[in-house]
């Protein structure tokens, strides 16, 4: 029997973005990472092109994290007092495509590290690894506006991905990244219109939309994930339909959310089964679901979760 055609022709491909610059391109990276470029929804090879596999970043911090559970500590406690060594382990031993340096130590309510110290951390990671960097502030607007300029300058030309700009705080970072040749993470609180609005504000200042990655906020499996999932699907469909303010690749910050929820962290509930498997599986599963909604870059923590999501991606990116 003849089956009707259900291939959809979408108006617009998702933007392609390359993070990291090699020496020929003005940076020092030995590898770059390119994501985006899809002309269809996730993994629908019958309909369009998916030129780049989503990328996996592993998270590194500028301080020894205090709230990471033992199940993560057992993999990182040998290196987590030194962001450079920590990053190197993620890349050399654990296969990270990118390193995300989160400047948690700069938080004024925490260790309140100085911009100089942050810049040293950035430098040490750049020196330790050849992969591109994501540099993420501590989330305090004023402090980030002090810290990130130094981090941007010291890595000018590296084409790192800096985060994050929001509706209320974008001017400093947009100006910097334009000047120093970086890319930007545009953050919004699980809201399709605010996500657009941040992009409008940034591009009004002259930022190229192709330099933006959307971070629509992430929630862990079982803790609000479905809201984010649907925002991502709606946004991705809008982007493919021709909305240029949603045509950006999407980033999900998963480890940070997963490694505080009970299902990942607790070994007290016997009925839930082996935590050493359940923990990383909770992170991997959160990742699988976001990949199906359109994620292009994932920030993750547990080595097993990272390697399994990679395997999963290999199977989804190839087809008959």
């Amino acid at each position, binding site marked *: 029997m003849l*089956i*009707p055609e259900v291939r959809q022709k979408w108006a617009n491909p998702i933007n392609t973005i390359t993070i990291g610059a090699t020496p020929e391109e003005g940076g020092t990276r030995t590898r770059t990472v390119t994501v985006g470029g899809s002309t269809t929804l996730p993994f629908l090879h019958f309909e369009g092109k998916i030129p780049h596999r989503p990328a996996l970043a592993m998270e590194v911090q500028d301080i020894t994290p205090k709230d990471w559970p033992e199940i993560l500590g057992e993999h990182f406690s040998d290196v987590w007092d030194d962001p450079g060594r920590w990053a190197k382990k993620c890349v050399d031993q654990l296969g990270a495509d990118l390193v995300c340096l989160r400047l948690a130590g700069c938080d004024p309510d925490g260790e309140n590290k100085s911009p100089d110290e942050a810049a040293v951390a950035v430098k040490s990671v750049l020196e330790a690894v050849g992969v591109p960097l994501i540099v993420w502030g501590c989330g305090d607007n004023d402090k980030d506006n002090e810290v990130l300029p130094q981090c941007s300058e010291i890595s000018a030309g590296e084409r790192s991905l800096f985060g994050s700009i929001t509706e209320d705080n974008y001017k400093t970072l947009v100006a910097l990244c334009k000047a120093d040749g970086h890319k930007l993470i545009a953050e919004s609180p699980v809201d399709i219109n605010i996500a657009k609005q941040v992009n409008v504000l940034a591009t009004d200042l002259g930022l190229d939309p192709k330099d933006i990655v959307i971070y629509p906020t992430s929630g862990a499996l079982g803790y609000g994930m*479905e809201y984010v*999932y649907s925002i991502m699907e709606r946004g991705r469909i809008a982007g493919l339909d021709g909305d240029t303010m949603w045509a950006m690749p999407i980033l999900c910050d998963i480890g940070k959310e997963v490694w505080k929820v009970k299902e990942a962290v607790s070994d007290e509930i016997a009925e839930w089964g082996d935590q050493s498997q*359940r923990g990383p599986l909770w992170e991997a599963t959160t990742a699988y*679901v976001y990949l*199906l909604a359109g994620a292009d870059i994932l920030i993750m923590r547990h080595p097993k979760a990272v390697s399994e999501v990679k395997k*999963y991606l290999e199977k989804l990116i190839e*087809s008959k």
Partner: protein
Amino acid sequence: MALTGLGIYKHLPKTNCGDCNFPTCMAFAMQLAAKKVSLDQCPHVSDEGKAALAEASAPPMKLVKIGKNSHELLIGQETVLFRHQEKFHHPTGIAVKVKDDLAEEELTNRIEAINNLHFVRVGEEIGVDLIAVEHSSTSPQGYARVVKKVKEMSDLPLVLLSPDPKIAEAGLEVSAERRPLIYAATGKNWQQMASLAKKHSSPLALKGESLEELADLTQQIKKLGVDDLVLSVDGPRVADTLQDLTRIRRLTLSKTFRPLGYPTIAFVTGKDPFQQVGQAATYICKYGSIVVMEGTEPWKILPLLTIRQNIYTDPQVPNAVEAKLYEIGEVTSHSPVLVTTNFSLTYFTVEGEVENSKIPTYISVVETEGLGVLNAYAGDKWSAEKIGKTLEEQKIKERINHNSVIIPGLVAVFRAELEEDFGWKVLVGPEEAARIPSFLKNEWKVTS
């Protein structure tokens, strides 16, 4: 599904007699298309006309029932491609396999393990929905014995997994009254399988090499009077299955392509548990009506049940509990008071931890329009003032002989105002509910 006025008009008598209280058949057809009237209002439609219109107005994806009575699973009749367009209606059934070559004790253990794959999340029971009995090596009698055992030990609906009609028949003979899903009719055995399905009025899964073959099979089998069908989709790779499931869903909903307008079943493959869960996650999110899993480890099943719960919640309905004072355990005037929001997920997470602590506790739930702690704060749905007033309305001070209230760590900013304006002694609790038990044990006692 949506039949146009013109499409309906074709099947009306076209006499414009007016007995339906509309001046013309066309006018009546338009009203019918808009679902404003029902077909019985025209006394003159022919039987063929009725049949054609019933067929055409049937939902594009069939609803199929597996199992009987209180233990039935309904799958299919989905109406959208994406949950934000409306909602998904019938949650993916999660099946776990049992093989028929297990030794008696192993079999018993396995069925028990499957029965135990039930959890409570967000105040809702979630669990495995089906047991799939897979034929491997035994005789028809051996297979029937295992099916019987499964049936005796578990109320879950069954899937009989064998391409051999003799085996399926043996299984059906001992379980037909439970309406098991027969898996599967193929290009080779479909006549025998369809007659078994007909004889026992059981739903039947179909397996083809391609969507084209599946469509041919459904049409042939339908002619034999069997229409409770489930399409088996398993491409060689997870990406192929995902794409076939997507094509079927689109064909059904965008093209009303009836030959494939049925629910689906997909299987996880391989031995690696993380990859099995990856496959199952894919099919739960993307259009699998049943997913057949391997293994009974709860750490593998819990994330799948959680995805299903997430993806199948209705995005248009705020998931809220009643905003009132809850008493957990045998509360007394010394019991602690926790404040939280009326988002179901928030409330039940907190309630679960209070139960874990085994310390009788009051939970004062504030009306926040179904938003969680930070969302209610960012969306101006609660404030120190609102909490203060709620505590007054709930008359909590009449029940306790202390003056302390515990607020979520994420809204520590409420503390000063609650203390100054409402006279409470405010304890800022942890940011995560998981730390509530240790907080109540260690810090609450000390400070109260």
